């Protein structure tokens, strides 16, 4: 449904997007993940015909975003980074206006606006002036604007930003429901968002694609460095040395203590190696007291950091 081939975008001397290629199948939800300035917004702006690419091609539903821009624009719903809202309109008028300019048949404009307000939880603010809405409601109106003409393709730039935790869950649920019928690309910095909503993730960093995979695979790929926290009664140096002797252990770091008797350690080990029993045996057999032991998985944030730092260097 969406085909991006060797797409690049330069702003003067800065390269915002650097030769990226990926595909999104019909009905798929693709997550676009990357730190600030990675090029997510720029890529989306090219896909929505707002910016022309410097090199490469992008096609949406078979239409080139540059040559058949009008056909592409008929088929997409786009929520930009800053929701494009007219602050002096009521929510209802704004959505009816959007229905009009996005080609909804005159007879259906009212009902489409109505249905979209329902979907996005805007019933209470239908007649409110947009300028007077809170940040979260404005974001919802922005989302509604992208949905009002029931487009085949949805491009959502950080759709859950500024929403309260409950709304975030609701919007993610909504996006999931929309998938299947609609093809969706969404961008975010928040990892859990990707694992909850998306079938595939493109990790982008400094304009380049760092990884494309399912959220599960990405997590598995990086869960390699399993971590265990242990609290031990005994001298720091000796304990640390003893732990290092365990074959699968790759790194040890002292978390707390240092001079007292009780010390905490973070022990990292190789891929899929469970060192806990070895660790317990080593500590107790050396005569130290094992006070506590628990697994600490790498958080998704850490995985993300690893990917965007490691692979960009490589």
């Amino acid at each position, binding site marked *: 449904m969406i085909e991006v081939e060797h797409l690049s975008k330069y702003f003067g001397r800065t390269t915002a997007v650097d030769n990226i290629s990926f595909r999104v199948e019909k009905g798929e939800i693709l997550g676009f993940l990357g730190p600030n300035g990675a090029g997510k917004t720029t890529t989306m702006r090219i896909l929505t015909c*707002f910016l022309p690419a410097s090199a490469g091609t992008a096609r949406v539903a078979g239409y080139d975003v540059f040559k058949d821009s009008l056909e592409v624009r008929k088929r997409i719903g786009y929520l930009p980074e800053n929701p494009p809202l007219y602050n002096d309109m009521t929510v209802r008028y704004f959505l009816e206006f959007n229905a009009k300019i*996005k080609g909804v048949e005159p007879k259906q404009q009212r009902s489409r606006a109505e249905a979209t307000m329902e979907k996005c939880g805007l019933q209470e603010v239908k007649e409110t002036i947009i300028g007077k809405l809170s940040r979260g409601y404005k974001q919802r109106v922005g989302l509604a604007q992208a949905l009002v003409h029931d487009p085949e393709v949805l491009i959502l730039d950080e759709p859950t930003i500024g929403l309260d935790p409950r709304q975030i869950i609701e919007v993610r649920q909504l996006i999931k429901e929309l998938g299947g019928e609609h093809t969706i690309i969404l961008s975010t910095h928040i990892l859990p968002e990707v694992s909850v909503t998306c079938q595939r993730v493109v990790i982008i960093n400094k304009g380049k694609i760092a990884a494309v995979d399912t959220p599960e695979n990405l997590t598995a790929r990086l869960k390699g460095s399993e971590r265990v926290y242990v609290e031990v009664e005994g001298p720091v140096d000796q304990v640390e040395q003893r732990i290092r002797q365990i074959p699968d252990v790759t790194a040890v770091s002292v978390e707390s203590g240092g001079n007292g008797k009780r010390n905490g350690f973070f022990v990292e080990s190789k891929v899929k190696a469970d060192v806990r029993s070895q660790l317990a045996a080593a500590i107790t057999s050396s005569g130290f007291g094992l006070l506590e032991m628990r697994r600490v998985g790498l958080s998704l944030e850490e995985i993300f950091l690893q990917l965007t730092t490691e692979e960009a260097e490589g």
Partner: protein
Amino acid sequence: MRNIAAIFHKELKTYFTSPIAYVLAAVFLVITGYFFYGMTVTFSNECLYYMQYASRYGGMPALNLNQQVIRGMFGLISFISLFIIPMLTMRLYAEEKRSGTMELLMTSPVRITETLLGKFFACFSLYAVIIGLTVLYQIILGVYGHPDWGPVLSGYLGTLLMGAAFIAVGIFASSVTESQIIAVVLGFGALLLFWVIGSASIFTRPGAGKIFSYLSILTHMLPFQKGVIDTQHILFYLSFIGFFLFLTVKVIESQRWR
């Protein structure tokens, strides 16, 4: 066509939800009303004076309501338009760009020309309504006097054409910037230039002078005020409007290429 109508409706709605349309209309009415009053009173005083003069010495000079009041009114209206129109047009593109709604318009299946025409006609309609308010004065003149209606009608035609030309310049000014203040200053500056350019023909070489006076918005307005409708002048305004709208489209297109 449907898109143009949608943009047209949206722009008009925005005009009437903000105070600017009302404030400008009010200011316009106060100024024109004051001058209308002044000019008609002067005219009737003159009439009285010359009637007394004629009754004593005979021979009444030709006093013309059209020449002395109506033509003056049209001159005044065009002059005020010079100030009002940049204030009506300043918002049209600058604000869309500043607030990010340009991204909405540009990614919707609406052509740049459709957006532009919607905006242009919305602004023109508002201008026509404001100018329409002065019809009241003509009615008053019609009730108490006997104006020649031909020049009144042609005067309105000229005023509307000139206003449309001003609007085209104003929209162009709005399209080059994100700031309404810059848009209004730029628009006003450009209009002023087209206003006074005719006078420059006095001190330039004859060739250039001819071009300058041809470009003067004012030169083409005067015949309408006198009751002469000449297609040459209508064509001037239409091509002037077309040229600036074309420039605006080019500017908007090029802004995507940054």
